[in-house]
Every structure is written in structure tokens, then in C-alpha cells.
């Protein structure tokens, strides 16, 4: 927008704002301090008439920076939705009148609060720009699907149905993945009583009949470059030919590998042929095809079989899996039925420590197994003794006794290891990194990472999507269902978390929908979840950049590559607009059009700081817009009071907080600063992965700065706030006021 900036400030008198505050005073503040060219009041700003009043000014008066002094920025977003203007909001309702008592002696401080919020919104407005397209956008409706199992095929069929062409890249020579190897699958519909046909043939036929779906068998991805909307993938066949195709988004459904039972010598696996894994039993059942299942050693028809649940799983032992694979209890019930349905006299015992049958029909299926006479014994196996018939030694936990049980065959429920590819760079050890660097420098180096990459991403941060707990390629499941930490790449099925066939298919539908949204958003230049529809993107001033690479390292989504001459290279459509790079940059050269060092820095400077003897401290709160700010709003809705000395500025993520904001506010005379971010750690809730963690780390360095200013370190506090901490937030603020009372006002008030 080349037009000159024209701020229009609109003050709402509804919702009690008009009764509690002096609106002509507010208007004066907006025009005098805020330099608003236009200022109007309305009794009901979010009404049709109120919105029209604003729109008229935009259309006829040239207002292009709108400041609303009304409710929280989280309220009435549909009404206050104007095109081609910047929008700033002074939160007079949730931020002022709802958190302050309606008493005469409070009027003055309440009014001061409101005036400050107007000054802040105007200051922010002044430094915001209207986001313009970056020119990077491109619409590409093609979806790349890595993996041709049921999850991959489901994703392809669903996306194709919605009109998006798909390409399935499958490593093996046929579609169907693990499910194709099953004799039958766990039932997926009522009454959930019997194993079901695995359904793969029909699905493969549907995929093959779909002209919108291209299948590349015996193929892998040897390089995946680009970003959502413009991924370029090298699809290489076994024979060595490579084709490069462009895609808008990616679904990774690379499945799982059965845990290697050779790591369980205690169960005589490998020694006794009649000790098999669940997958091996599937093969035997396929062979029997409804007839009696014969055991591998001598072909004898099995008369008794025992299933050892959690074999090498849910255990902290070296080499074991820590997780529960979730599907194996139901799988053992199903497999016991293979025997029982053929001959009810076969003895089938499922030895479990906790029987878990997730899913809608799980419990019914368990009952059905019981009805068919499968014996469920709660116990823990310690050993399988090799012999003509294997003997299982276990402790019966209900009867509290040790048992030796000889059976014809033992099945080990060994669980899933995700095919998640290589660990990301952040997950590597120092040695790994050194090796990689050495190899890049041309040295002959054997890289220890012996896992094949799935996507071979051409990202600075690693070849595959980052792994989470136990190596699964998931993201935070509450904040980002189906997502990974790589925008536009969605994992589905057991590569994301352990699951059975039906769950993998449901999962794939979700991932396909997400992929479609990502491709479309990339075309429009819009951000992905959670800043959906944000059109701004980070840019940097090359002149100032010292090439420290902090931004490239700290971006949680791998959005920033490095150019050959060492500068950051932003990939707009990989970016989620968290601002972490902005907070990380020590020379402050990164900014967004609508969020920058200045949009926040000028707000905090716009606050009127009374002098030391006024006994009116000022507390600055930088609150994460995802959880802490809503918690503050909800505290207000509950009419929980907090100090009138508080000034709150929402930030995109604590990771975006620049140290300069802290030093600036100390220098301008704030008495205390509170940072509110999301919980970190194993159960982190940060929408941008590690924002509060980074803020905590950065703030630990603030101590020195405070010391050099001779300020107490209690003046800056960082808190982890969940969205539900409604009662905690006012307390934290009021405690800060108490602290200031004790340690005294800041001497930096001029």
C-alpha cells in the first residue's frame, strides 16, 4: 500500500465500557497521543451499524490502520473483519473494566489503564504494515503419499475423491503394506465378534481404478525439496531411473516394522521354531487358510498355543520398546480365534499383564474371544524353555504362583517400531554432527546413522520429520492432530503412533484433509494452523545479519534454509508465523509486516509511566496469544480482579520475545515484567514446540542485564500457563505487585 498511513480509532461504549470509562477522555488520548486521524464512538461497535461506520471510513476517508477500543482481540472477530487494513485492538472490556471493581476510588486507575491500552494499540498500529503477497505462492493440488499400505491408500482415495490428484510412492513391489500380510484383521464393525477379511484386495482395486491416483512401485524418494505448495520430489525406481515431480503437500504413511524378536533370547525365539511372532503367525494362518494351523517345526496341527503379550514392549530394559503398541492385545484375541473358530478344542491362552483393546469395538471383541473359550490369564512370562514342545514359565499374578506350561506353540506379541526415517539434526549426537560435517567437507566418513531416510528432505534441519516419543514421527497431539514439525508434511498410521488397521485408515483421512488444506493455504500465502489465514511472513534485513544462524537453528519447523553465502533463506509456506526466529535474532533484523520488534517495542514505550513518587508501579505482561492470553480473558469473564497497574501485550509465542523488549521496558521504568508461556517439557503444550523453553533460557541471561542496571532479578519472572489456569493468572500478577511493594519502585522513571 503506497497510500499514506491513516489511523482510525473506534471506541465502543457498549458492554458497560461507556458507563465505566470516560469516553471523551479516551477519544482525546487516541487523537492526541495516538495520532489517530479519525476517531469515532459507537454505542454498539460490533453491531451492523458500528461495523458499517468503520467500513465507511475505510472506503471514503482513506482509513487504512484501524484501532478498535472495545473487547478482546479474541472476541467478535467475525464482525471486525476488514480487508486491506491493519487491525489493532485495545482491550477495554476483558483487559480493563472486567478485571477492575466498579468503585469510585478505582476510577482514576481504571481510566489510566484504558488510556494506556489505546496509546498502545495506536503505537502498534503505526508500526504495522498491511501484509502483501510474497510472490512465493503457488497452488499445486498434487499430493505426494509416501507408503502404499492401507493408510497410504486411504489417504490417496480420500484426497482423490476431493479432487486432488495423488501419487503413491511405495518401496516394495506391491500395495497393501502390513495389512496385506494379515490373514484377517481386527473387526471394524458391529458386532465386533469375528475377525474380518483384511480388505486389501478391494482397496488396491479401487486405487488402481482411480485415474487420479498414480502408483510408483519399487520406488523411493531420493530427494524432497521445496515447501508446501512447491515441493519437488525425486522419485527413484529400484532400477535407477529418477523422475522429479511437483507436489503441494505430503502425507507420510511409511508404516512400521515388527520389533526384532531376536532381541528376546529369553523366549527361545530363533532357537525354537515353534516360538513365532504375531506376523509370522499371520503367515501360518494364511497358509492354513481356514484349515488347522500347523506349527513350523514338524507340521503338527496345533492343539495348544500361548500368546505372550507385551513381548519386549512396555519395558525399560535396554533394547526393548518403552511404548505399548496398542494393537497387539486385539491382534492376539484375533489370532486365538483363528484356532478356536477352526477347532474349539484347541487350548488358547493369552498371557497378559494389562489387556488393552482400544477402539469402539475393542471390549466386544474381547468378550467374543472369551465366549469362544479363549483363556485370558493375567501373568508375566519370564522364559520359554526350548524343547520338543516349548515350555512357558510364567507367574500367574491372580493366583500368585509360578507356572510351567508346555504348549505346542508360543506367539510373541512384539509390537511396532515406526518407519520414521532418520533422526533430525537436533536429535543427533555431537559425534553424528561432526561426522556429517566431515563428510560434507569431502572427507571419507562413515555416518553412523544406519536408518534409511523416508523423505530425504533437502532441509537444513534433517532428512526426515522430527521424531517424538519413542521414535514416532508425531507432533503434539492436542495442539496439532495429524501434524508433524514440518509444515505441509502429515504423518498417518503407525509411523505417527502405534495403531491398528482401522485406526490407520481413520488417521489417513485426517492427514489427507490436512494435506489438502496445506496445499490450498500455500496457494493463498496463508499460514497453517494455528495462525490460520495469517498472510504475513518473516523477512530479514540482509545488511544487519551477522550470519549467526540462530534463526535457522531455532525455527521449530525447519522453515529456514541457508543460502550458499550463509544467509537465512525463508520458506514462507513452511513457516507457521510463530516469530521464534524474530525472538532469536540478536541483531533484530527479522520482522513480519504485522508483528515486529517495533510493533511490540513501541507499545510498551507508549505506556505512560508515572513518576516514582506517584506510587503507581507498572507491570508489563507479555502473554502468549495461544493459551495465556485466553486464560487472562477468561479470568476477566469470571470477573477475577487483578491490579490496575498491569499492561498486557499478547505475543505470538514466548519464543518470539526479543530480549530488547525486556531491556527497553526496564529502561523505560517498568517495575516488573511477567512472561506467560505454555507448559514445556515432555507434556509440552507450546503450539510452536519449545517457545517457553527458549524464553526461559533467554531470560536466564537477563539476570546479568538487570544486575548491570542495579535492578533486582525478581523484577522479571517467567511462568508456564495452561489455558485452564484461569485462577492462577490474576494471582501471579497480584503477587508481582506485592513483590514490587517490597523491593520498591524502579529507579528508572524519567
Amino acid at each position: 500500500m503506497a497510500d499514506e498511513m491513516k489511523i482510525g480509532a473506534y471506541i465502543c461504549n457498549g458492554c458497560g465500557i461507556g458507563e465505566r470509562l470516560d469516553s471523551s477522555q479516551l477519544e482525546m488520548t487516541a487523537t492526541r497521543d495516538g495520532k489517530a486521524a479519525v476517531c469515532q464512538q459507537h454505542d454498539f461497535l460490533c453491531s451492523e451499524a458500528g461495523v458499517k461506520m468503520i467500513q465507511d471510513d475505510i472506503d471514503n476517508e482513506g482509513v487504512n490502520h484501524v484501532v478498535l477500543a472495545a473487547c478482546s482481540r479474541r472476541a467478535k472477530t467475525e464482525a471486525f473483519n476488514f480487508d486491506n487494513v491493519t487491525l489493532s485492538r485495545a482491550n477495554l472490556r476483558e483487559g480493563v473494566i472486567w478485571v477492575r471493581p466498579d468503585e469510585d476510588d478505582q476510577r482514576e486507575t481504571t481510566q489510566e489503564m484504558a488510556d494506556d491500552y489505546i496509546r498502545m494499540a495506536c503505537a502498534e498500529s503505526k508500526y504495522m504494515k498491511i501484509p502483501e503477497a510474497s510472490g512465493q505462492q503457488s497452488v499445486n493440488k498434487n499430493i505426494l503419499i509416501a507408503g502404499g499400505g492401507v493408510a497410504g491408500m486411504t489417504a490417496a482415495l480420500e484426497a482423490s475423491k476431493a479432487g486432488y490428484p495423488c501419487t503413491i510412492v511405495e518401496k516394495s513391489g506391491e500395495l497393501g503394506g502390513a495389512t496385506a500380510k494379515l490373514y484377517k484383521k481386527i473387526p471394524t464393525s458391529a458386532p465386533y465378534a469375528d475377525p474380518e477379511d483384511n480388505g486389501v484386495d478391494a482397496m488396491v482395486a479401487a486405487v488402481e481404478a482411480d485415474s487420479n491416483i498414480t502408483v510408483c512401485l519399487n520406488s523411493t524418494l531420493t530427494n524432497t525439496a521445496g515447501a508446501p505448495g512447491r515441493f519437488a520430489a525425486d522419485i527413484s525406481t529400484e532400477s535407477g531411473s529418477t523422475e522429479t515431480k511437483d507436489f503441494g503437500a505430503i502425507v507420510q504413511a511409511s508404516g512400521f516394522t515388527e520389533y526384532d524378536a531376536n532381541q528376546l533370547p529369553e523366549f527361545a525365539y530363533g532357537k525354537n521354531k515353534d516360538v513365532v511372532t504375531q506376523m509370522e503367525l499371520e503367515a501360518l494362518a494364511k497358509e492354513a487358510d481356514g484349515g488347522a494351523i500347523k506349527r513350523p517345526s514338524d507340521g503338527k496341527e496345533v492343539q495348544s498355543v500361548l500368546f505372550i503379550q507385551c513381548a519386549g514392549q512396555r519395558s525399560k530394559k535396554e533394547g526393548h520398546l518403552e511404548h505399548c503398541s496398542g494393537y497387539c492385545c486385539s491382534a492376539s484375541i484375533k489370532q486365538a480365534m483363528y484356532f478356536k473358530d477352526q477347532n474349539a478344542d484347541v487350548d488358547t491362552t493369552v498371557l497378559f499383564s494389562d489387556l488393552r483393546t482400544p477402539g469402539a469395538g475393542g471390549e466386544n471383541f474381547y468378550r467374543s474371544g472369551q465366549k469362544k473359550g479363549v483363556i485370558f490369564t493375567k501373568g508375566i512370562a519370564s522364559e520359554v524353555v526350548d524343547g520338543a514342545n516349548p515350555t512357558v514359565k510364567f507367574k500367574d499374578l491372580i493366583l500368585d504362583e509360578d507356572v510351567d506350561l508346555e504348549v505346542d506353540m508360543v506367539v510373541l506379541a512384539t509390537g511396532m517400531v515406526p518407519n520414521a526415517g532418520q533422526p533430525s539434526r537436533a536429535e543427533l549426537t555431537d559425534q553424528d554432527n561432526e561426522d556429517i560435517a566431515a563428510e560434507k567437507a569431502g572427507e571419507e566418513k562413515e555416518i553412523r546413522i544406519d536408518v534409511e531416510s523416508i523423505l530425504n528432505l533437502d532441509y537444513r534441519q534433517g532428512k526426515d520429520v522430527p521424531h517424538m516419543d519413542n521414535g514416532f514421527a508425531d507432533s503434539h497431539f492436542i495442539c496439532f492432530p495429524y501434524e508433524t514439525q514440518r509444515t505441509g508434511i502429515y504423518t498417518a498410521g503407525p509411523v505417527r503412533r502405534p495403531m491398528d488397521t482401522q485406526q490407520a485408515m481413520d488417521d489417513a483421512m485426517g492427514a489427507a484433509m490436512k494435506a489438502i488444506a496445506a496445499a490450498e493455504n500455500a496457494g493463498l500465502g496463508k499460514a497453517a494452523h494455528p495462525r490460520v489465514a495469517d498472510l504475513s511472513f518473516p523477512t530479514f534485513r540482509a545488511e544487519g545479519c551477522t550470519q549467526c544462524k540462530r534463526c535457522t537453528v531455532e525455527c521449530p519447523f525447519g522453515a529456514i534454509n541457508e543460502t550458499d553465502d550463509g544467509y537465512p533463506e525463508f520458506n514462507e509456506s513452511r513457516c507457521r508465523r510463530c516469530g521464534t526466529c524474530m525472538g532469536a535474532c540478536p541483531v533484530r533484523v527479522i520482522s513480519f509486516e504485522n508483528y515486529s520488534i517495533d510493533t511490540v517495542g513501541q507499545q510498551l514505550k507508549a505506556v505512560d509511566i508515572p513518576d516514582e513518587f506517584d506510587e503507581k508501579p507498572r507491570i508489563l505482561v507479555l502473554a502468549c496469544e495461544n493459551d495465556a492470553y485466553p486464560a487472562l480473558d477468561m479470568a476477566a469473564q469470571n470477573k477475577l480482579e487483578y491490579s490496575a497497574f498491569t499492561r498486557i501485550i499478547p505475543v505470538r509465542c514466548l519464543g518470539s520475545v526479543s530480549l530488547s523488549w525486556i531491556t527497553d521496558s526496564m529502561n523505560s521504568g517498568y517495575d516488573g515484567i511477567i512472561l506467560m508461556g505454555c507448559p514445556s517439557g515432555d507434556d509440552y503444550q507450546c503450539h510452536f514446540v519449545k517457545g517457553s523453553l527458549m524464553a526461559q533460557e533467554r531470560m536466564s541471561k537477563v539476570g546479568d542485564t538487570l544486575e548491570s542496571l542495579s535492578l533486582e532479578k525478581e523484577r522479571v519472572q517467567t511462568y508456564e500457563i495452561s489455558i485452564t489456569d484461569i485462577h492462577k493468572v490474576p494471582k501471579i500478577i497480584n503477587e508481582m505487585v506485592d513483590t514490587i511493594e517490597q523491593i520498591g519502585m524502579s529507579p528508572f522513571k524519567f
Partner: protein
Amino acid sequence: MSDLNTGMVEKYRNNFLKEVEANVEEGDWVKMCMQCGVCSGSCPLGTDWDHPPQELFMMIRAGKREEVLQSTSMWMCTSCYNCIVRCPRELPITHIMHGLAHYATRLGIEPKGQPTRQFAQLFWDNLAKNGRVNELWLGVNLYFMNGLVEGVKVALGMAGIGLGMLKAGRLSLKELVGGHTVKDKKGFKAMIKKAQELEAARVDNAQ
């Protein structure tokens, strides 16, 4: 499997479970127990049982035939129905307890000195005679079931209650000689006989 076949039942094989299913009232429910322990936790007497219901069910599935059938546990059941009300799997636990006790009796391997078993027998014999419970004789038989000396002691201890019941008309000395019967005693006897025939046929069938 025959009633009298007390032969080898293999561990953790289904044989004993199948025997229970065939012979014990509501026995085919045993396999449906999911071992949650709610019944054992709900049973007012559970802590006094050698093997509370949940454990009995697991023992049946583990093939512990003698230990189960010779156990005093199911004889401890007071038919309070707490367990049935609470069992998430809706097992008719109370009935299974009595079924197990009854089956053990049929096999003749029930625990001999178990007092509730003895009382149950006295009660049945007393009731089956006239179709009505003769409280006086039931009391007398019960008190003296462990011999004369013990009986006198118990009877004296209960004298107060007995006198109270006499006064309230809940007990009549006339009961000592003959006592009251159901109206159609002959019909009653025929009914019992028929029931016993049916039961015997059922047992035969199961064998």
C-alpha cells in the same frame, strides 16, 4: 466328563472349565470374567474367603479342579447379591457360587465340617419335610449339630432371643410335635420329586 471322574485335569487347559460349564448352574459364565476384582472387593465376607469369587474363576480357568471343588470359599456366600449388582461383565456370581457348592456336593467332595454347608443341609431337610420351615426344630438341630454339650451351651446363650420370639408369636412350642405344614403337602412332595428328577436328568445329560 462324568460327575465321578475326578481324574487328571490338565493345568491351563480348558477341561475343567468345560466341566464347570456343563455341570455348574450358570457355569458357562465363568469364562466371561475379566478379572477386575470388583466382586471380591464388594463381597462383605470376601476377606474371609480362602479364594474370593474372582480368584475362584481364575482357578477354574487354570484347571485347579480339586482346589476349587473342595474349597470352603463358595460356601461362604450369603447371597447378598452385591457382586452381581456390581460386576461390569454381569456375571451371575452368586448363582455360580451356589452352583459350585452344589456340584461339589453332588460329587461328594464338599468340605465336610463347613458350618454353612451343614446349616444349608439342615435347612433343606427341615424345609423339605413339610414345605415350611419348622423354626424350633431348625434351631434345635442347629444348636446341637456339634454335640450335646456344645448344644446346651449355645441354646442357653440364645435363650433370651428364643423367649422373645415365643412372646412375639414368632415361635410356637407346638412345633415340637409335628408343626405346621403347607396346605397341600402331597402336592408339595410331588413337586420336589419332579424337580429332583429333572435335575438328575440334567446331570445325566451333561455327562
